[in-house]
């Protein structure tokens, strides 16, 4: 019981430092990267200005995959050690991950139209990314459908972990199946593309991850507050305040 309460408190103190860093980090990384992307980076010699979509597309997809990995890992912690904080993290990460996945797919479609002449093709990476979106949504549906917090957390965790199979498919689909996507998923070493381009992209990706972290921490804090409020209200509305304590200590003597 003690560790249960101690950890959220520790988390809160820690988040007081980490959240602003991530928030500011996200702002100072994402906004300049966009300005760079739109106005400073030269147009690609093949694709022209359409190339600029990459700077919102790639970070979103990276952040989405990262979010799923985060969800799966948090689920693992929540499942094995039944850590409530890990479960909260998983729970709040899912909708954020879904939003990033949506952004990745949406910008990808708009990039695909001028580039390949089609908004959507059913190649392996697009399909597996779409699958990822549905995995996020499925996870959220499970969490919403099961009322019992305890069971909801554990069943959701299993589903999230099972869905992690999709992650390597997203990652390696380009290499496994010939696809319209560039392999080596937009080279970060900068050997192929202009240096300012890769720097801008890299900054954007880091920025998106900061934003993801900030959103997760912030939403976790609200979730923790909400849970505490609910617990307090339930306790106060209980006619017999002693039952709560009886349940853990009194009953075994019966």
């Amino acid at each position, binding site marked *: 019981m003690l560790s249960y309460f101690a950890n959220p408190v520790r988390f809160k103190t820690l988040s007081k430092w980490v959240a602003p860093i991530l928030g500011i980090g996200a702002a100072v990384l994402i906004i300049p990267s*966009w300005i760079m992307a*739109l*106005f400073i980076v030269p147009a690609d010699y093949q694709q*022209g*200005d*359409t190339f*600029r*979509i990459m700077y*919102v*597309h790639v970070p*979103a997809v990276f952040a989405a995959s990262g979010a799923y990995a985060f969800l799966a890992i948090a689920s693992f912690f929540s499942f094995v050690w039944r850590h409530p904080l890990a479960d909260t993290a998983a729970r709040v990460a899912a909708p*954020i991950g879904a*939003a990033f996945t*949506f*952004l990745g797919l*949406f*910008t990808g479609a*708009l*990039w695909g*139209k*001028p580039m390949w002449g089609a908004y959507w093709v059913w190649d392996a990476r697009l399909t597996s990314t779409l699958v990822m979106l549905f995995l996020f949504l499925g996870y959220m549906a499970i969490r919403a459908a099961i009322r019992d917090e305890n069971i909801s957390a554990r069943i959701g965790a299993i589903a999230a972990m099972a869905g992690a199979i999709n992650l390597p498919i997203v990652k390696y689909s380009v290499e496994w199946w010939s696809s319209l996507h560039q392999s080596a998923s937009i080279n970060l070493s900068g050997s192929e593309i202009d240096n300012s381009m890769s720097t801008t992209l890299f900054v954007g990706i880091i920025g998106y991850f900061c*934003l993801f972290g900030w*959103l997760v921490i*912030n*939403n976790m*804090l*609200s*979730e923790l*507050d*909400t849970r*505490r*409020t609910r617990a*307090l*209200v339930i306790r*106060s509305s209980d006619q017999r305040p002693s039952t709560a304590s009886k349940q853990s200590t009194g009953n075994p003597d019966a």
Partner: protein
Amino acid sequence: MPELLDFGKNSIFIWTCYGVTIVVLGAMIITSLRKKKLAKKALAIVLEEQKP
């Protein structure tokens, strides 16, 4: 500076991408902040009620 914002025939794609991204990310940030504020407030009210 209209020429700076003009990316040729594919302008509309680029601006839609950035626009939607900003809207979605912005919405997430705003709801997150609002939720946090509301949760804090609700907790403060309940704590205040239960003090006496």
